[in-house]
């Protein structure tokens, strides 16, 4: 759907873009909003008293309201703009958890997390002696029972992706959120792969902190969101200090911070990026997540049916209800498959998808990953199938 809005899909050389978990294409509306800022009303935010500066302020702050609408949270103060999911997660770990946790406190993760939701924790563990425990996966999936079993009186945090970037499995967030609030556990959710594809309700789902990136939801790169419950964000120490976040300071070293959310947005923000995120949200909400999700499911069903008929294709997550397919050609290294598909202008991702420790659980180390989004079509899948059916000449192409 909406392919006419994506200039990159309407070039002479046809492009089949199946790597939407890595980043998505950008519609004209998003690009135009960024270009407008740079060509029609460039100014800094929160600074001047002239027209353009006020307009920038309105646009920039207006995006906070849009994010609030997207996440269904209580207050616009709970929305902090960052450079992306990775930055948001690091702020949660090093600005909040570092001061709230103590030696021996337990943090529950899974081995299917993205590096951005593991490495900060591992580093904090070295710094202050928290203990990281991995929730055992049931057939690669997180179950409420397994989460419950892992909870001890020392469990203080559960930090997991809502949807993983490896198999695209959706975790039972609402139930885990309930467990967290019952047991006074901070619930950190990496929404990088869910916010772009489905409705997230941080209140209903008892989410304390949520991180996601604009670029995986039609928006610009280098911008993302940190959501945190107001009373928690109040206690989050700024990990970055400078202009825009202080109310006053003196030469004695007395600093008074501004109120939320400015306190957590030091320096000139990515204004163009935030504005672009705003139009991406408008764009997605105008289509509706139900329609997007249904479209992705339909594409997956269509593709899986055809892929299953090709004898040397191995599928790893066909039963999962999502828009992602992990596969290999039997006996071919995933990267060679990706290079082969690239020859036909089909973009897929090969690798372990930055979830390096998952291979300890999953028997295969590397897969090819197809991830759909709203603009993908059945015709594109037909082309993929045609190319994969003819893969006996793969080494003629890749070597």
């Amino acid at each position, binding site marked *: 759907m909406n392919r006419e809005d994506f200039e990159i899909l309407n070039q002479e050389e046809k492009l089949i873009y199946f790597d939407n978990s890595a980043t998505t294409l950008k519609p004209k509306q998003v690009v135009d909003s960024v270009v407008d800022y740079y060509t029609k009303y460039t100014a800094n935010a929160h600074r001047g008293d002239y027209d353009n500066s006020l307009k920038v302020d309105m646009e920039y702050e207006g995006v906070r309201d849009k994010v609030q609408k997207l996440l269904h949270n209580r207050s616009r103060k709970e929305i902090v703009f960052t450079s992306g999911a990775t930055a948001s997660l690091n702020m949660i770990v090093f600005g909040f958890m570092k001061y709230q946790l103590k030696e021996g406190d337990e943090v529950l993760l899974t081995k299917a997390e993205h590096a951005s939701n593991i490495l900060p924790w591992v580093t904090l563990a070295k710094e202050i002696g928290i203990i990281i425990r991995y929730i055992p996966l049931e057939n690669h999936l997180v179950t409420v029972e397994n989460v419950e079993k892992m909870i001890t009186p020392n469990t203080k945090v559960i930090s997991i992706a809502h949807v993983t970037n490896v198999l695209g499995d959706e975790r039972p967030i609402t139930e885990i959120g309930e467990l967290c609030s019952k047991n006074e556990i901070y619930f950190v959710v990496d929404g990088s792969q869910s916010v772009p594809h489905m409705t997230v309700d941080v209140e209903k789902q008892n989410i304390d902190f949520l991180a996601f990136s604009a670029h995986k939801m039609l928006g610009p790169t280098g911008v993302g969101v940190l959501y945190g419950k107001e009373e928690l964000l109040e206690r989050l120490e700024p990990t970055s200090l400078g202009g825009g976040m202080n109310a006053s300071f003196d030469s004695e070293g007395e600093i008074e911070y501004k109120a939320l959310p400015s306190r957590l947005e030091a320096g000139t923000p990515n204004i163009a990026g935030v504005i672009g995120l705003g139009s991406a949200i408008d764009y997605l909400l105008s289509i509706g997540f139900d329609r997007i999700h249904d479209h992705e499911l339909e594409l997956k069903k269509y593709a899986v049916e055809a892929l299953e008929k090709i004898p040397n294709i191995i599928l790893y997550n066909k039963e999962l209800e999502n828009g992602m397919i992990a596969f290999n050609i039997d006996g071919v290294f995933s*990267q*060679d498959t990706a290079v082969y598909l690239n020859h036909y202008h089909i973009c897929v991702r090969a690798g372990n998808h930055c979830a390096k420790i998952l291979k300890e659980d999953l028997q295969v180390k590397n897969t090819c990953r197809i991830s759909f989004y709203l603009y993908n079509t059945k015709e594109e899948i037909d082309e993929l199938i045609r190319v994969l059916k003819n893969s006996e000449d793969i080494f003629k192409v890749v*070597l």
Partner: protein
Amino acid sequence: MDPNLRREILLDHYQHPVGHGLKDEKGYIKINTNNESCIDNLDIMYKIKDGIIEDICFDGEACAISTSATSIMIQSLIGKNKEEAKKILDNYEAMLDERPFDQELLGELNVYDEIYKQPNRKKCALLPFESLRKIIDQL
């Protein structure tokens, strides 16, 4: 080089690599080599005696280019001393960087003489040689 011949050599080394399988013996130095694409993952083991590379073996998961390059590298290095190995390394890198190099010296490694046309695969062709760089001073 004739593209068909090149492909044949590459495919042969990929499907039947020289030195495949790690050895559980003393006297080997093991090096793990992970390229920046964070996907190829090979263990390469060197046995060095009296300044000579006596044996090399490897195992792991890697693409056709990395695997075949490892195989041909092993074939080219066994029996070489530090100076000879260094020469092969330097000339191979020169070839991948499109600089002048000694074609004769490189033998079958010449199959990668056009890999510079595919920048994303250059890394794969270089991967096994990174391990050589790490051990060369121990020769």
